[in-house]
Every structure is written in structure tokens, then in C-alpha cells.
């Protein structure tokens, strides 16, 4: 009887733990603020990278700022909403998606932006259905720009700076201004 009673109390507890683990596992990390909140504008680029370096995850706001600077040489937008709208126009982010500014950015989103900046055509699936977070991530892994990651993971600030640098290196190679 005692064993049955114990079993009956453990099972709901285990279900509750599993459910809570599942719920929190799907949620993304949210920071209090992004580096770009303080360091945006024409003269603050180097400070932005410097502060991003010590950030444990790169937020959507920071990622969009960095990727827009990479794509255009400068980011003239002032707010997250403007950057998000621009990213939607560029199809980096799906029209119905509304990621939070200080939420950790998904590698998939950054990979789609990278595919756009590098004009990656991809394989059959990408050619048929267009760039998607999953296949762009796989393309970047194939191109040795990203190590083995999945599209839902996030990057630290230091990793994001490295990713942007690797995309820039690839751009330089492709534009024929490679070093050697």
C-alpha cells in the first residue's frame, strides 16, 4: 500500500517536471538591454563591437544592427522597429514573425541574412523554396563559415563578431579583393 501511495505521488511530480522543462526549453534567453541601445550611430561602431564582445548572447536588436552594418556599410536606422521592418523587407525575417528586441537571436535568422549578403544560391531545396533558417544554416556550415550548429541555437557576442568577420572575409574573397 505504501509503495502504491509513493508511486502515485511521484508520477504527477515527474510529469510536472517534464512539462516545465519542456516549456522553459523552448523559451529564448532575454537580456535586459542590447549593446546597440547605448552604442549606435555612425561614430559608435567600434564601441558597439567592444561591448558586444562581453555579452553572453547576442540579441535580435544587436544582430540586426551588426548585419545591417555588414550589408550596407552603415546602419542608419535608429530604433529596433525600423531595423525589424528593414529585415522583413530583405526577407531575413518572415513577415509574421515578431522576435523581441532583447531576445537572443536564432542562428537561423542570422544565417538567412548571411545567405542574402553572400548571395548564396544553395542546393535544390533552397532553389525551390527559397532561403530558410534551416537550409541557410546548413549552407554556412558547408561553406566553413559556421561550425556545427542548429538553426535554433544562439550565439555569444564574441561568436557573433566572429561570424560577421567570416562573412566579411568571404565577401572579400568573392569580390576579388582577397589578400593574395
Amino acid at each position, binding site marked *: 500500500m505504501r509503495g502504491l501511495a509513493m508511486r502515485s505521488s511521484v508520477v504527477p511530480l515527474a510529469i510536472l517536471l517534464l512539462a516545465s522543462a519542456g516549456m522553459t526549453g523552448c523559451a529564448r534567453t532575454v537580456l535586459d538591454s542590447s549593446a546597440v541601445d547605448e552604442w549606435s550611430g555612425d561614430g559608435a561602431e*567600434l564601441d558597439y563591437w567592444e561591448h558586444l564582445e562581453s555579452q553572453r548572447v547576442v540579441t535580435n536588436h544587436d544582430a540586426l544592427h551588426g548585419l545591417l552594418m555588414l550589408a550596407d*556599410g552603415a546602419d542608419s536606422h535608429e530604433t529596433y522597429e525600423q531595423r525589424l521592418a528593414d529585415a522583413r523587407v530583405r526577407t531575413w525575417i518572415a513577415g509574421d514573425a515578431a522576435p523581441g528586441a532583447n531576445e537572443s537571436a536564432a542562428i537561423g535568422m542570422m544565417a538567412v541574412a548571411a545567405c542574402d549578403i553572400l548571395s548564396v544560391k544553395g542546393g535544390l531545396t533552397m532553389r525551390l523554396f527559397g532561403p530558410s533558417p534551416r537550409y541557410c544554416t546548413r549552407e554556412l556550415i558547408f561553406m566553413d563559415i559556421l561550425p556545427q550548429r542548429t538553426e535554433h541555437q544562439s550565439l555569444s557576442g564574441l561568436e557573433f563578431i566572429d561570424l560577421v568577420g*567570416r562573412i566579411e572575409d568571404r565577401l572579400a574573397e568573392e569580390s576579388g579583393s582577397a589578400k593574395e
Partner: protein
Amino acid sequence: MKGMQTRCAGLSVVVSAASLILCGVTNGQGLLPVRPDHKETTPAEAAPEQFGPRVPRPVLALPDGQTKRLQALVIDVQGRAQWRPSDTAPWKNAKVNDLLDPGAGIRTGLRSSITMRVGKNATILVGRSTRLDLPQILQEGAVLRTRAAVRRGRADFKVDLVGLTNDFAVLTPTTTLAVRGTGFAVKWGGLEGVEIEALASNVIHAIEVRYLLTKLRYYLSGQAVSRESQPDPVEAALAKTVSRPLSGALSETEFLAALQSERAVDYSLIGLESTVALVSSFEPPPMDEPNGMPPEGFLLAMLVCDNFNEFFVAYQNVLDSELGFNSLVQVFQFSQLVNEIQAFCEQLEQFDGDPFQFVVKQVTVFCHTYGQGAGHDSSSPEVELCISLFHDLVQGFADDGL
């Protein structure tokens, strides 16, 4: 003259070098009046004769136990690049000719780079989105000790063999690498950690040549003058704490070929530029030669100073007869030159650097202003003749000294 003879036992050796230097004027291509015995030669052809003796000499070792702090000189900046002298100092935008002491930090943005000549044996190209520190740049006796810390990003390191022991280490957050006398690029990032790549040697060579070309223009422009009381910090650094930005990169022949192909430079100026490059070159001779003989720059300056009155009266006469003093302003400019050199001669013994280079620079500046006063532009034959007359005179006095 007597003093000259007693002090300059090795003058005969030097005069031959001086003759070669002066050949740069008398046989240089371009703007000089054509003489009957003049023969057109390309710089590459002329190089072995004119520049053979100027094959880069090795950096000299310090006496045992002696230590000297070296510096880094910014020779190229692209895009956004900043540096700060210490961790707590504010960042400032990097410019060409900035001098960095050990302990400096450097950072660059996207599509940006900064290139530095570091100490006496290295050139570092700091690439995009990079943070790099230079905690140590010094010479200890016969060892050139440099530490460069790549915190993130990419940097290319070219380390030259200069005759001393290279102790050059590159630190990253995960690895320490040593460079003995070659080069490589180090990338460090959050995704893959440290990566070693081939050196962007062509890019570095191009930057070094471009920097040298700007220095040549600078020497000719007359816009900046180095005085003993107020020496140009870049030139002082090139003489003392940063050395030979080009020596490991190009041979003289290659350099001249590069000069020839450089579109930005008027080909007709090469003769003059080569001459100025020789006498006021990137490699000012050290003040103490290994064999104890005073360096050629010092001997030539002594030649001028010991025969000061005789020399400048002769220079004034020859200038007057060849070019003519057309205005009081020109006479005044000449007297200013004489005063400058006289003040310099009085403190020749204490002069730190190549004294003959200083004299040539004063004469070059004078000739440019003199030419402008007569309505000539800086590349006119009259200006070059004004300089070459000075060199002819030095050669004449040197021959008499024998």
C-alpha cells in the same frame, strides 16, 4: 680642414659612398639638365651601381644588459581604426605616422585595417573587427623582443631577419605562437578559436611601398622641417625606435621597379627622389659603426661645417651664376638657410640622428621656397639644379679633402 683631416681617418671610404650618392643627382633620370656624357638608364639598370652599397645593413645589437624600449609606427589606416596608449586611456582615431608605445591597444571595425611597423623587425597588419594589444616592444642586447596579443579578429605578422635574435610571440586567448623570422596570419574568434593562415605579404609590401612614397613626397615637399630644437617625432622614431619599414620587404632593385610602376609618382622625379631617398633614407646610419668609424652622414656634415664660410660663399656664387638671385626675398631665404646650418653646426656633436640628412633637408626646403619665389613649381629643373649644385659642391669639397 685640418680638423677635418684628423677627425676623418676613414674619409676615403666614405667619399666613395658619397660619390655614389651624388651620382644619384648627376646621373639621375628626369629633370636634370642633360649633359653631353649623360646616358639614359632605367632605375632598375642603375640600381646595382647606385644602390649596391645601400643594401640594408643589419640592426646593431645593444651592449649586453642594455635595454631599449621600441615603438610602433602607423603606416596605413583603412576605414575605422582606433588606438589607446593604455587600458584606461580613451580611444583615439588612428592616423598615419602615429607613434605607439608598448602597452598600446588597437581596434578596428568592419572593412577596416591598420598597418604598423613595430620595432626594428616587424610589420603588423591588423585586419577587420580586431582587438590587438602590444604589451611589449623592446630590444635587449642582441634580442628584439615583441609580444602581440590578438584578443579577437585577424592580424598578419611579417617578421624580418635583421641580424639579431627575433623573440616575437603572438598571444591569443587560447594559444601562444612564436615567429622566428617569417610571417603568418593569426585569426582568433569565438566560433573556431585560433586559426593560422598564410601571410598577406603582397598587401604588406604594397602598404610599405606606398608609405615610403609618401615619405619621399614629404621630404621633397618642404612642408615639414625637422629642427634640432624641435625634431619631427616620426623621423626621430625612424632613427631610433622603429627601423627599416622596407628593408625586409623589397630589395633596392625591386623597390625602384615599384617606384617606376607607381602611377602616382612623376617618373621624371625618380632621379631626384632616389637621391633624396639615399641621403635621407629610411635607414639613417647608426651613430656608432661596429668598427668605430663615424658614419658617413656625420662625416659629410662635418665636411660642410668645418668649411662653413668657404662652402656657403661658394654655394651662393654658384647659385647666383647658374640661377641668379632675382629678388631680395631670395637673398633673405639664402641667409636663413645659412643661419639654420650655422646653428646646426654649432651643436653637431650633440645631434641625434643623421646630420647630413638634416643638412640636405634644409637645402631641399630652401630650394623649393627659392624656386617658388622665382615662379617655378617644386618639380621644375631649376629646383633640382639648386639641389644638385649643393651636392656637386659637397663632392668637390670631399675630393679636396682627399
